[in-house]
């Protein structure tokens, strides 16, 4: 098993890792335009109000430019990305207010300036209000993280939420369905539905947590694409979806033992067993 060394690495002069900061942003000499662009919004964070954050972002690189060996043309192109981000977000999100900024504008276009290590921010939007009023405490969390919005909902109502998202909020495209295994948690699995709305140009992740052995209702009736995606989740995690038309393994052969993407899945044991049975020798692994 390839265990990555953490402390023994000879070159990890990484000052920011204990604090959990994302980048070694301000620490270095900051000769690159990027580094200064990173630092200035964070330092200006407490003072600059939300709407002018993009301006700060746009300003920062051009201010830093004279120091670096950058042509004027480059400065304009560098400043350009921030400009259309806001207008693009406004029409695209439609009814959404400013907080629902478009994703690509990433860190800077967020209403709240980026803190030292991105923390999930509470996500306020009409959609959330509507959902909360309808489902109350079933919506456990609605947040954004680095500009990406997600909902954590109770597993009992996830089907209704998805149905609501599909038909009332027009999230007509189910990008992906996947799962994450946390063996130490009581509810071991996160099921993640990544949804996209062509109408709002918006992406939302709906997450729910279920225990091992718990079933979920299938989303095939909502999005046809869920068929194979759920089969893959079943294949890799052993999570069963009730009402799925054809729930069987998809990537692995039918007789496969175990579900490989569970954290407790023993790769080596599987390998050794296979070698023993099929080759009649002891695996050298």
């Amino acid at each position: 098993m390839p265990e990555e060394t953490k402390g023994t690495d000879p070159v990890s002069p990484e000052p920011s890792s204990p604090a959990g900061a994302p980048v070694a942003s301000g620490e270095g000499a900051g000769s690159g335009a990027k580094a200064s662009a990173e630092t200035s919004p964070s330092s200006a964070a407490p003072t600059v109000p939300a709407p002018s954050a993009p301006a700060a972002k746009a300003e920062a690189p051009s201010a830093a430019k004279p120091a670096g060996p950058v042509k004027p043309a480059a400065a304009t192109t560098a400043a350009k990305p921030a400009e259309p981000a806001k207008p693009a977000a406004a029409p695209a999100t439609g009814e959404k207010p400013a907080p629902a900024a478009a994703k690509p504008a990433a860190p800077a276009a967020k209403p709240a300036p980026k803190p030292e290590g991105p923390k999930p921010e509470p996500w306020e939007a009409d959609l959330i209000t509507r959902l909360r009023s309808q489902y109350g405490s079933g919506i456990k969390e609605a947040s954004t993280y680095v500009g990406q919005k997600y909902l954590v909902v109770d597993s009992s109502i996830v089907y209704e939420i998805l149905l609501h998202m599909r038909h009332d909020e027009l999230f007509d495209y189910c990008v992906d369905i996947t799962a994450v295994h946390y063996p130490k948690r009581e509810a071991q699995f996160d099921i993640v539905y990544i949804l996209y709305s062509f109408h709002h140009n918006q992406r939302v992740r709906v997450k729910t947590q279920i225990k091992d052995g718990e079933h979920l209702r299938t989303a095939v009736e909502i999005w046809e694409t869920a068929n194979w995606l759920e089969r893959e989740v079943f294949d890799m995690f052993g999570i069963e979806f009730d009402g799925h038309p054809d729930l069987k393994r998809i990537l692995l052969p039918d007789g496969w033992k175990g579900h490989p993407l569970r954290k407790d899945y023993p790769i080596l044991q599987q390998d050794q067993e296979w070698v023993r049975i099929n080759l009649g020798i002891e695996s050298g692994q």
Partner: protein
Amino acid sequence: MSERTDYLDLDTKDETFLDATELVLNMGPQHPSTHGVLRVILKLDGEKVLGTECVIGYLHRGVEKIAENRTYAMFNPYVDRMDYVAAVSNGLGYCEAVEKLLNVEAPPRAQYIRVILTELCRIASHQVWLGTHALDIGAITPLFYCFRDREEVLKIFEKYCGARLTTHAFRIGGCIYEAYEGFEQDCKKFCDAFLPKLDEYEELLTTNRIWVERTKGVGILNPEDCIALGVTGPVLRASGVKWDLRKAQPYESYKDFDFEIPTGLNGDTYDRYLVRIEEMRQAVRIIRQAVDGLPQGPIMAKVPKVIKPPVGEVYHSIEAPKGELGYFIVSDASTQPYRIRVRPPSFVNLQALDKMVRGLLVADVVAVIGTLDIVLGEVDR
């Protein structure tokens, strides 16, 4: 397409296998035109397809499990092996997703280089598609012309990053390789030489009556079906949905460039062909702009040597040549990703096969598999 429902349902399995009116044909996993190791079980009435079932997984390598046992930087070369005809795009998506998790952004010059290489890669990928698709439909010659011109792209890749197919061109935080001397000229030369070649492909196919007959009205997907099936990329656009992640949610420096999103009207194989051909032209346009506006500056953002993103999860997707390629990464603040989920466009697009081929003939199945532009390395991961 409403009349499709009256065909036999695939789910009534075993008893019909012996039914004399039906022929069960096992296409693949070793078949000349299943593009690798796809196995399609066809249920036929004569030559008419009553239903299909895809059996995939022959090329499953457990990429997502491998990712959990590698550091972020180490996993980078593996993503090239998923969609191996568009390795650069895969690398781009992965690097961007990790960058998002780290909250860094590649410097402008790196972004431009990335865009140039990704668009070159789009051309290369579409050329492989065109060649194999034409080969499936029986035109054997375009394949060689396509591969000849793809060679020029691969040469640029090799000069830039030292590998032709599994390029490992980008690193988290930017690019590690500076554009080599003559990079701009090479790209421009390629663009200039490529457009006439593209016209040549079109001369061989676009107006050819056999090609038109073979592709028009074959494998129609209407926009609603596309969206319900999660189909993305050229297949979606050929159905008339003008949706391209490069425009819808621009990443890298795509906002700086002026290009069109070609769309089709009928959502048939011919439209998908035209859309992809036009996409190659647009890619040339983007490359030209990017090469002209290539800024100076650093190519690598400040990224720690040992990448240890904060706890969090992020989904980032790009417009790969085949559709929306997404990476969902969960970090637990260790050096290894807690979970990486790849949202492969080929896998999702392949799901549409059944809907597209019902009621068509065996020969159309081959055409439709070709037009979906699947790469089994990505379907099976």
